[in-house]
């Protein structure tokens, strides 16, 4: 199995990243040299600082999909720390700003652990409040206006005020550094987790990704980097006020620049800042004396325009346009290969046989109760599964099947009862922990990580189980199991229904690990016979290798001949269980499905 694995194309290829960051570095350096000692240098400094700030924000908002509207909180901590240390103890801002970095990281960890349980709009709303509070506190403790001590002859660590290029060079260096951090982060296993999280938080959690930790880490990194920029900014602004560094406008700026340039791209935030900051500064320089609020107006109007006219942002729009042009010239454009159903060696699996009664219990569901509001959805559900068993849970729509799955994999907490997986009580565990314990699941409508390639979808799950090499091997093996090897590099968003379902099974297999338990929610619904055959064959091999399968369907027909045993759920209660032939003849089952009159 140690044969050479096909290379995967990562979401952020190294060569392209180096070219982009190199362009920023060289372009910035040229601008700095060109501006020399002229006042333009100050504009360049500001543009580069905001480019860095926006890039830092982009890590948590763009890559991880957690929109914060309060990044000024972290930025301002950097500004205040650097300035207060200089003013009170004469410590150079170059060193002082690191205190800000530490404070911002701590603040982010605290804020993150409080707020990141919230999702979407709630999270954005709550984060917007923190800078307001910091501002109130700063004002209360008498920090309404802290000037940066000015000594024209101060040295390098004070950013040599006589040579404005020193500060702009630091700004450029920081921006490039933030870009490097983003690239390293996104190319690590963490990068896959982040992308998975952004695409579908629940599916990521169910695939073993500890989403809360991933979010907090992304926020802490982003906050710390923002504080670096905040520290440098103080030396450019010369005075630190709460209204400025903790202001709404400061929180809006990274959002605006990133959206303008392209959220979630490496170059976007930088492009946004480099275009908009000089524009606003030039306008302010020309008309600012008569219209002091012009810059805010420009930023607000720019944000409105971008959102309404090209919400994808400048960089993606330009990139797509160039790509289209290039493709039209006949230069490229990969045509997706047709999925060959016979690419993996389809060795016949001997007719699957139920495990002996002596096989160890892999899943023990004990007396589960669950109600939503006044409606009882699960009533004293008891199910035992043995290792190597294929168990079908059937019941009419609305019988509580999916709720049962959500209780088992940790999305829902039962009102009473316990779930034991492989001898471990997982009733109170998080979905990611349950997944790592050896449980992979699929969803009623396939939930893949769109925007990631097929192999990355599976790899993100496999990585939660072990080393990178082992994960890569496992991911390729899982893809081969469902005959998707030749679609590995295709984005999940471009796959057909059948392929999505197969990919989801591969991801679930990678999540559970060999010998684990798979939970499949109506996995055969709406599939062609060819696709169904691929799935069923893969599942039989899974069982032959020691794995177990728990599958939901709403009709028996689909799974007869596949399962060892059925459990029939009706109105949240187990009304029958046993081998298929026994269930056929069960009076309670017939009544549940077809009504009283069918019972002869």
């Amino acid at each position: 199995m140690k044969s050479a694995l096909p290379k995967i194309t990562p979401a952020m290829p190294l060569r392209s990243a180096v070219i982009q960051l190199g362009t920023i570095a060289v372009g910035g350096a040229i601008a700095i040299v060109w501006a020399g000692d002229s006042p333009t240098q100050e504009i360049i400094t500001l543009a580069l600082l905001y480019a860095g700030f926006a890039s830092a924000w982009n890590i948590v908002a763009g890559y991880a999909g957690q929109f914060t509207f309060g990044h000024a909180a972290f930025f301002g901590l950097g500004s205040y720390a650097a300035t207060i240390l200089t003013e009170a103890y004469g410590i150079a801002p170059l060193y002082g700003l690191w205190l800000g970095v530490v404070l911002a990281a701590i603040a982010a960890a605290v804020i993150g652990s409080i707020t990141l349980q919230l999702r979407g709009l709630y999270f954005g709303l709550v984060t917007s409040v923190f800078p307001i509070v910091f501002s109130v506190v700063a004002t209360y403790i008498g920090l309404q206006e802290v000037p940066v001590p000015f000594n024209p002859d101060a040295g390098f660590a004070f950013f040599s005020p006589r040579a404005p290029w020193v500060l702009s060079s630091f700004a450029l260096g920081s921006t490039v550094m933030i870009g490097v951090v983003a690239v390293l982060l996104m190319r690590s296993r963490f990068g896959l987790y982040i992308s998975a999280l952004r695409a579908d938080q629940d599916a990521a959690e169910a695939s073993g990704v500890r989403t809360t930790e991933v979010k907090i880490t992304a926020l802490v990194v982003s906050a710390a980097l923002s504080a670096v920029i905040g520290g440098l900014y103080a030396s450019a602004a010369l005075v630190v006020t709460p209204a400025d560094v903790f202001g709404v406008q400061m929180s809006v700026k990274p959002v605006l620049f990133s959206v303008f340039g392209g959220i979630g791209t490496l170059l976007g935030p930088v492009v946004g800042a480099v275009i908009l900051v000089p524009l606003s500064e030039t306008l302010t320089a020309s008309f600012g004396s008569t219209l002091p609020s012009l810059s805010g107006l420009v930023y607000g109007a720019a944000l409105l325009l971008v959102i309404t006219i090209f919400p994808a942002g400048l960089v993606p729009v330009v990139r797509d346009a160039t790509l289209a042009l290039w493709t039209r010239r006949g230069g490229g454009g990969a045509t997706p290969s047709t999925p060959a159903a016979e690419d993996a060696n389809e060795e016949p699996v001997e007719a699957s046989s139920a495990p002996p009664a002596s096989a160890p219990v892999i899943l023990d569901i004990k007396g589960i109760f669950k109600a939503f509001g006044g409606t009882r959805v699960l009533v004293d559900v008891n199910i035992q599964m043995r290792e190597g068993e294929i168990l079908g849970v059937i019941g009419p729509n609305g019988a509580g099947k999916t709720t049962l799955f959500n209780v088992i994999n940790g999305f829902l907490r039962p009102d009473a009862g316990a779930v034991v997986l492989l001898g471990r009580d997982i009733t109170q565990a998080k979905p990611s922990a349950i997944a790592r314990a050896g449980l992979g699941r699929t969803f009623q409508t396939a939930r893949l990580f769109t925007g990631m390639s097929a192999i990355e979808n599976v790899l993100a799950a496999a990585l939660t189980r072990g080393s990178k090499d082992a994960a890569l091997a496992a991911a390729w093996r899982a893809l081969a199991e469902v005959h998707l090897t030749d679609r590995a590099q295709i984005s999940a968003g471009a796959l057909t229904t059948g392929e999505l379902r197969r990919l989801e099974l591969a991801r679930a297999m990678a999540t559970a690990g060999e010998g684990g338990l798979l939970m499949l929610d109506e996995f055969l619904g709406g599939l062609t016979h060819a696709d169904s055959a691929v799935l069923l064959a893969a599942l039989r091999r899974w069982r032959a290798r020691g794995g177990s399968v728990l599958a939901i369907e709403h009709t028996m027909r689909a799974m007869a001949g596949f399962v060892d045993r059925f459990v029939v759920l009706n109105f949240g209660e187990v009304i029958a269980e046993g081998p298929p032939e026994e269930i056929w003849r069960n009076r309670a089952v017939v009544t549940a499905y077809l009504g009283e009159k069918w019972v002869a």
Partner: protein
Amino acid sequence: MIVIDNLTVAYGSVQALTGVSLEIGANEFVSIIGPNGAGKTTLLKSISNVVPWQSGDIRVDGTSIRGREGWDIARLGISHVPEGRRVFGQMTVEDNLKIGAMSSRVDMAQIQGIYDLFPHLAARKHARAITLSGGEQQMLAIGRALMSRPRLLMLDEPSMGLAPLLVEQVFHHIGELFKSSSLSVLLIEQRATEALEASQRSYVLEQGRVVISGPSAKLLNDPAIQSSYLGITAKG
């Protein structure tokens, strides 16, 4: 009154309906059966024009509804009882019925008519809809749809989540409604047997395509249908 001509619907790369053609005449009871994921719900949503379709056409009384707003479809006399009932939970039973009338002038006699049809609702007219049982909510959803005096009533799995006894009640009501008026009914069901028994004509949908169609009585006795859709009758 409705003709669906070679309709194709896709969500992104996922094909939901492929070249579906069917028609429903005036005062006709048509059912559509098929497994989960076959595209049944998508078909109803296409008629109500809340999902865009890629090709083909839907014509009501000979006129294409392409480009019409979803809310105009209801005003053409097509009433949709969605899957999962979807009553307005925080509003009272009576307000749900009033809103169904699609007009600020509500005929109280008409509401009384609905109460006569579903006496359970009358008893709970001032309760918030969310507090109703599943069966009562289904009655309310049907009542709400009837308030606009439709020509075609479209029902998306009215049996979902109901106890067998209630299912029989709901189907009984639907049958009575059909018989006592000039209403057309388009019924989508998992429960193939009940749907075939209640309807005059049926279509079988599989993976977004019509695979079989014909008079319901004929389909009910078709061995292929029996083994595929009537579940346990296939035990042999």
